[in-house]
């Protein structure tokens, strides 16, 4: 009985693996052939020999008026944007969640709702006015403009709040005995304890920020600030180059998830 269920499990899991891996593999394999080959023979499962040629061409080919923007630049822009979003979100949410959980003051309830109602309103629902406001603030073509509207989100606050609520009260009591005030408690006691959670939320927000589509699409109106998303939209023509670009655009967030999964998963456990 055990043997059968055992192999059944593996069968299911293996099918799941194939489901996840095969599509990406096909795109990757196709990206290592020349476009001519793909145009005549369709998508490929086996590797070709144009890997270096295609990938270096995509990374370093320049376009735009100032001949400055390359795919590499786009990846860098996305990276900067994602890091900015993650950092800002984690920073502000860490503090905001603390303010909500560790205080009982007259307007606490009001602030709670003020912050959490915003979960109902993702960026897509306020995109046009945001565009205009950023335009008025002259933030349209800048990293700041890319980062700020997306960081206006309470997701991270939600995670930190759950975490703080699970921290035992004794911690604060012992800190108070040591004569710590609120800020000291926060910095010296709570934050170090939250390290794993911080890492998990950072990773989560990084991936979230990196994969933003609509906002960077609309607001990066000069080539310097194009993110990976614009590359996806404007890279026509050569099929293998398009595939190479697709593969490369996946790499940063996927690598982060794979190699930092320990932190990420732990953070989710604690959230549960």
């Amino acid at each position, binding site marked *: 009985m055990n043997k059968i*269920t*055992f192999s*059944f*499990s*593996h069968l*299911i*899991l293996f099918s799941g*693996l194939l489901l*996840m*891996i095969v599509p*990406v593999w*096909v*795109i990757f394999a196709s990206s290592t052939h020349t476009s001519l080959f793909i145009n005549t023979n369709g*998508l490929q499962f086996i590797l070709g020999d144009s890997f270096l040629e295609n990938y270096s061409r995509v990374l370093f080919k320049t376009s735009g008026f100032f001949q400055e923007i390359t795919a590499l630049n786009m990846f860098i822009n996305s990276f900067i944007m994602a890091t900015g979003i993650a950092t*800002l979100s984690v*920073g*502000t*949410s860490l*503090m*905001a969640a603390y*303010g909500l959980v*560790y*205080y*009982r*003051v007259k307007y*606490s309830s009001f*602030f709670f709702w003020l*912050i959490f109602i915003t979960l*109902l*309103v993702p960026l*897509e*629902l*306020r*995109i*046009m*006015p*945001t565009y205009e*406001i950023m335009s008025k603030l002259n933030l349209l073509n800048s990293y700041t403009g890319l980062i*700020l*509207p997306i*960081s*206006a*989100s309470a997701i991270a606050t939600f995670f930190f709040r759950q975490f703080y609520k699970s921290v035992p*009260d004794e911690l604060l009591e012992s800190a108070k005995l040591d004569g710590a005030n609120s800020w000291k408690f*926060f910095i010296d006691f709570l934050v170090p304890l939250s390290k794993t959670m911080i890492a998990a939320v950072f990773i989560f927000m990084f991936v979230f920020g990196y994969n*933003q*589509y*609509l906002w960077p699409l*609309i607001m990066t109106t000069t080539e310097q600030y194009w993110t*990976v998303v614009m590359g*996806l939209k404007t890279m026509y023509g050569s099929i293998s180059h*398009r595939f190479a670009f*697709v593969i490369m655009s*996946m790499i940063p*967030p996927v690598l982060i*998830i*794979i190699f930092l*999964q320990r932190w990420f*998963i732990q953070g*989710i456990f604690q959230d549960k």
Partner: protein
Amino acid sequence: MKKVQFKSSYSQYFFLAPQLLILLIFLYWPIIQTFRDAFTIQDAFGFGSYFAGFENFKFIFTDPSYFTAFKFTIIYSFVITLITGSIGLLLAVQANSVLHGKNVYKTLLIWPYAIAPAVVGVMANYFFSERFGLLYHLFNNIWGFNWYENVFDAYIYVVIAGSWKQISANFIFFLAGLQAIQKTVIEASIIDCKSSIRRFWTITFPLLMPTTFFLIIINITYSFFDTFGIIDTTTIGAPGSETKTLVYKAYIDGFKGLDLGSAGAQSIMMMLIVLVITIFQFRYIEGKIHYN
């Protein structure tokens, strides 16, 4: 509920300030604008604007393509939640129960979550294109699949593209939920009930309710909003307007059609819909969850 810790309002404001500031400027201010737009009629450049009461709402309610988008969005989120939830759960249960290779499976099933929906859409485009599409030809040979003209086929296309990476997200959370169930509970249940299938449905699954509840919200949010990148790179709303989600239609009308009034009204409607769904979730579903 935490024991009351600090009482100083100023101190609290200090901690809340950074996030509130960002939310006020970059979220609340645009939302107020959205409300203003929804109740105004104006031309593309903002001239000729006047307060128009509910006219923009009347406009969208008499627009057949609005209801098409509404219908599609509801169906879409339902199907995606069902598919990604069940497959994610299945994979998580299996991953939880195997003795060997757990980590390998875990690692290799997690990473699709990190891929951007837009990238998934671009990939799906090739699998479903008439020229290269392996899936296109497969389905075509079975029943004459053609998403360019058949609404049903277009649904299948965007559902597959939309579900693929979300399965991974469901997997992650279900796995975490399963591993959080204490061993003692599991061992006790093995004594009580020999059949592993019955054990699962009577003991384990109820304990997973909080996770399930959480994932339903995540999946609905994903289908409503995050699938924008998928639609924009795959069907672009075709055929007809049949595969436009509500948010996609609002974008087209506002950004390409330059009709801020209509887009604003649609955004407000979406906020209401999400609010209703959330309230529904909390009132009726959470009530049925047994917390241990």
